[in-house]
């Protein structure tokens, strides 16, 4: 297994035309431009084989796209800020790497096209980042689109696919996510010298997220993404952080550095460096075909088996009951001193089972909506089937839900009345 890190560092940068074309109009934009320059020097020191860009301004809806044209050049005028002038650009694209990325994303079951068309529009964000970080094409580039419909599991999967491609191509990368933080724009012209974050609430949330990133608390930052998106209209739901988390791999954290935090036309524009604490390796190169997962959050297994096993693109989850990790009590079960069941509540138990399965799936980058088959074990079919079914309906339905088999068993290894075993898309 490769021990050298596939990704030496990543950056979150804003992609506003003002930073490139109007930096002298105010201290904030000038500051961002200067911070970009510090990052540029760091990248030169890192000396990567490739810079991988993902910009929230390159939106795709029919799956994903990667730029496949080996030499992309042109002149671009921003649709909003055309009065600031034009941006010429050139990218030396590593086509072979792009095609490998497309293959890896396709293997996950998504549509992914390598685009190579004269005049294909390059988004402002990627151009700004390239002009400020890699103006002389010292390093080859890759660009991956941001699919508006990608959820957390899918977006993390795309990140993993990029790491897989780096592994297969034996490349060392610097990764650049072009994304705003809060994304409320002013809808009136504001004197650049008076530019400020759209609202105190946005500012508060930006600082909260930046604080977590600076601490390197990836898990906490990921947990806050939905709130950040809802409360501060984070750019594309801040799904870029999911993408980065997928690239870094499970269990990896980073040292964070906030280079700058300013506003551009009301949005939260920050430049953040994320330096992985342990080498980023391709878990998927080995794990994708076959790997076991032992959960850190779900109840301990009662035998020598993992919580889940990945085989190819499928995830097989072991039989899971309602127990809670680290607790001797079982939700929905009342025991006497000898451990005999006095009463039990099938509703409470079933909800707890679903919670445990959800936890395991999400730890593996999957989710309940990716479950394709479900086996149900009840200890008392006659008494519990109807109630179980009504709870089940809260999670799955016959239109979009998984296939299911339900059987009665004499007993289960612990004093529980229900256990589920699922297969999900990884």
């Amino acid at each position: 297994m490769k021990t050298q890190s596939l990704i030496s560092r990543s950056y979150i940068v804003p992609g506003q035309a003002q930073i490139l074309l109007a930096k002298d109009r105010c201290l904030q934009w000038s500051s961002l431009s200067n911070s970009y320059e510090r990052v540029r020097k760091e990248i030169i020191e890192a000396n990567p084989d490739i810079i991988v860009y993902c910009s929230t301004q390159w939106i795709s809806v029919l799956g994903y796209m990667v730029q496949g044209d080996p030499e992309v050049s042109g002149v671009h005028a921003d649709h909003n800020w055309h009065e600031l002038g034009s941006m010429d650009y050139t990218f030396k694209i590593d086509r072979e790497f792009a095609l490998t990325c497309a293959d890896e994303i396709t293997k996950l079951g998504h549509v992914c096209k390598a685009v190579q068309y004269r005049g294909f529009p390059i988004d402002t964000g990627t151009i700004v980042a390239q002009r400020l970080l890699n103006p002389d094409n010292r390093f080859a580039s890759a660009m991956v689109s941001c699919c508006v419909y990608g959820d957390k599991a899918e977006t993390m999967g795309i990140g993993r696919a990029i790491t897989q491609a780096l592994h297969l191509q034996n490349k060392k990368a610097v990764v650049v996510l072009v994304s705003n933080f809060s994304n409320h724009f002013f809808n009136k012209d504001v004197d650049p010298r008076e530019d400020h974050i759209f609202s105190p609430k946005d500012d508060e949330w930006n600082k909260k997220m930046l604080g977590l990133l600076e601490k390197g608390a990836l898990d906490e930052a990921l947990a806050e993404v939905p709130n950040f998106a809802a409360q501060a209209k984070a750019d594309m739901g801040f799904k870029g952080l999911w993408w980065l988390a997928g690239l870094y791999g499970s269990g990896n954290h980073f040292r964070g550095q906030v280079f700058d935090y300013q506003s551009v036309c009301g949005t939260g524009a920050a430049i953040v460096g994320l330096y992985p604490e342990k080498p980023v390796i391709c878990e998927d190169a080995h794990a994708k075909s076959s790997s076991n997962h032992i959960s850190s959050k779900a109840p301990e297994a009662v035998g020598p088996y993992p919580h889940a096993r990945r085989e190819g693109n499928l995830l097989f989850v072991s039989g899971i009951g309602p127990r809670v990790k680290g607790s001797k009590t079982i939700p929905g079960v009342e025991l006497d001193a000898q451990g005999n069941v006095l009463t039990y509540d099938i509703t409470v138990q079933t909800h707890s089972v679903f919670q445990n399965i959800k936890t395991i799936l999400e730890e593996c980058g999957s989710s309940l909506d990716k479950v394709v088959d479900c086996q149900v074990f009840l200890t008392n079919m006659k008494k519990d089937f109807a109630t179980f079914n009504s709870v089940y309906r809260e999670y799955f339905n016959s239109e979009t839900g998984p296939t299911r088999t339900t059987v009665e068993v004499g007993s289960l290894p612990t004093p529980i009345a229900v256990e589920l075993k699922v297969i999900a898309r990884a």
Partner: protein
Amino acid sequence: MPIGKILAGVLAPHPPHLVYADKTPRNEAQGECGWENLRWGYEKCRANILAMKPDVFLIHTPHWQTQVGHHVLGLPHFSGISVDPIFPHIFRYNYDFNVDVDLSLNIADEAKKKGLISKVMRNPDFRVDYGAITSLHLMNPDWNIPVVVLSANNSPYCSFDKVELGEMNLLGEATYEAIKKSGKRVVLLASVTLSHRHFVKEPEIVEDMSKEHTYSHAQYIWDMRVLKLMKEGRCKELLDIFPQFIEETMSEVQAGSLNWMLHAMGIPNYPAEIHGYGTVIGTGNAVVEWKHEQAMGANA
């Protein structure tokens, strides 16, 4: 100088698939066939419109999204290649057209008088969006009539609410004022799709019509409800249901293009003519003509 007038308003959706199937040499990708209901609808509408001999096509386009203000193209000539970032495999169109700059500037001025922010786009490197190109090609593939292109100040990055739709109404009124003063005979184009939920996978053959159908029955019912109101000349009611229509079908009318056009025409109370309805990758599209001059006479 005679008083300018609106000859007609057209709901002119912009699925690039229609240009792809149209096999125009201007487009680098050419399909075999497909979406005939809509393309033949456009043909009928085009014949009517070109017979009116308009001086200008004036289009409001959702795919030119602007954050601050309503923008108009302000240079006399634009040419280049427009590549659809979502469907680049079917739309790479070489455009070359003239702009009625005087009317553009007048609209920007009138908008300012109404308290709106307006801007004139004078950057020669600007690439005209594929939506505008698609609708304009389908209305006039010869491109021998000048155009005015208005942006949609409805970026998805801004929260969308009734205030912005209200701005579109004002912009429509400002547009009408500018047209009257210009002395020009103008056709308005609202370049929007109706219901807008869509499939996220294409068939292997893009123009395989055996795979084309509405995204959902609910979405189809909504489109029919909207078209019925248009057909019956009940545009006030139509405007009233837009928020719900947008909410339930993600309709592209949220761009405000229809609000703009209907307000420019004083919210028509006469029947529109539906030339065609069809789906494109699941979205609902219709070509609809309001024969404004015919209905309004001297008040057009």
